[in-house]
């Protein structure tokens, strides 16, 4: 059966974010390694990087406002039970690292309010509420260091701000490779990709509460 798990605003946010992050990484690599790569001039890469960054900041608020003002926020916390959440995360991790090779079934059962497995839910919250905002803040500070000199000093100086920005860039670079691969581990290789386009996921059984 088909269930509607990705509302339109989420899909718009997701694909804008996906394309934007890839573009930010590519222009970021061009800016940082201008001596090794010559696809764009340094100045063009900086201007493009800045422009895409601001688009993604606006896009972030689309995501934030959607979840803040709809009940869909429950997808991140189906049950406010940290112990259960960590146990489920560990079970999911064990599935990816061991069970999947033996042909075990995915321990996560998808439903409208449980579209993320516990590992995704935790990871995405860290990414969306901590890492992405931190990347945006450091990016905006670096965009105009004079204007934000007070905040730059508060964070410990331009090198500290830049080092945080680069460390997050390194993390997101790994993420853009890992994320599509993990997305291919659904019930079919392209099932999750199709769902992020149409909004509908194919599930094998009627959605129900997740069993421990």
């Amino acid at each position: 059966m088909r269930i509607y798990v990705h509302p339109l605003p989420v899909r718009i946010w997701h694909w804008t974010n996906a394309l934007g992050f890839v573009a930010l990484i590519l222009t970021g690599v061009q800016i940082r390694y201008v001596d090794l790569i010559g696809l764009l001039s340094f100045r063009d890469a900086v201007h493009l990087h800045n422009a895409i960054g601001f688009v993604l900041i606006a896009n972030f608020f689309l995501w934030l406002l959607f979840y803040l003002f709809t009940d869909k926020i429950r997808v991140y916390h189906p049950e406010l039970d940290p112990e259960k959440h960590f146990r489920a995360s560990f079970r999911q991790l064990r599935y990816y690292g061991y069970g999947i090779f033996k042909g075990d079934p995915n321990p996560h059962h998808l439903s409208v309010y449980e579209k993320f497995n516990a590992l995704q839910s935790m990871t995405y919250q860290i990414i969306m509420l901590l890492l992405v905002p931190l990347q945006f803040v450091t990016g905006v500070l670096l965009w105009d260091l004079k204007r934000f000199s007070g905040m730059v000093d508060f964070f410990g100086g331009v090198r500290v701000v830049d080092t945080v920005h680069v460390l997050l860039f390194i993390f997101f670079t790994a993420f853009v490779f890992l994320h599509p691969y993990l997305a291919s581990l659904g019930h079919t290789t392209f099932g999750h990709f199709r769902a992020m386009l149409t909004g509908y996921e194919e599930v094998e059984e009627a959605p129900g509460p997740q069993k421990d």
Partner: protein
Amino acid sequence: MACEAPAVDEIRRILSTAALALAVGWSGGTIAADAPAALAEADQACLACHAQEGLAKTFGKGESVSLHVQGEAFARSVHSALGCSGCHSEVDLKTHPGGGKTFATAREFSIAQAGACRQCHEDAFEQHKASVHAARIEQGSALAPTCTGCHGFHTVTPKTAYETCVTCHAAALAAHRQWLPNAALHHEVVSCAACHAPKALRMVDLRFFDRATKRWVVEAAGAQTFGKLAGAVDADGNGLDPAELASLLKQVNPDAAALPKTLRGRIELRSNVEAHGLAAKETAIKACDSCHQAGAEPFQNVTVSMTGPDGRPVRHAAQKQVLDSPLAVASLPEFYAIGGTRSRLLDLLFLAALVAGVGFPIGHLTLRWIFRKGKGR
């Protein structure tokens, strides 16, 4: 010499001449209120007349050049030790005022006076001769600066090139904002000549800044502590390495609770003399990657400095590794230039992220394939 006109000025001129004669003939006489004791007696004698406000040299078409000298300011200038005759050796006291070469215009006089600077600053003079400023003078520009246009007359003190340049080029920042990202920051941390003297060699100067007073740290007169301290820390004399720089910072900041004196970096010319060879703006460096790439020329030479009591920097060499070492996050939190100070450690982490990002899916997929094959058998 044709001094300011009518009767009062004429009387003043006569009195001044008399005072000059007295001063020259009668050493030890106190002559003018604006004649600081720090100056030599001969200079004080000159100030007997030249300390008077309004004293001026006039030319045709109503042009005039002030001959007024502020004694106190001159005493504080870098040239005070030279005395008046150091630059004005052409003045013959037997005929002064009134003798000497005559000039048709103030501009002609100003250009001729540059010869006095040349006596000591021949190298800078030669650079200036090949500059866009000299070319404009040659073309008859009334605005292009001679030596005094940038450095002033009798109050020459160390000041930043930026302060000097924007005196005339007031619209420079607005013009740079049209194309240069972070233009205001570039104007703060890159010397104008670093881009506008494109053939000159550049360097990074890391200067002590006091975060408590929000000013450059200025060494107390006679202390000379920075030079000694840096020399002691750099015991092997091969320039401060990253660990030595961290040690120097600790010694400059003995009170860990106080706001620290930090190092702020600037791109400057290795030789200030070359700052006089400013080229036409069309030939100025506009390519960002001349600085913003690993191994860029300005980042190959590094100095650590503190402003000396006279305003000039006291410098000590540092190794270029201080800029991209992992220790730089703590030692140089306020200096970073994309590419130029790129950290190798972060490069390795980026490489590791790429390997992990590509390698994990391939490895995981391979394991799945192997297990599925095994199960099939």
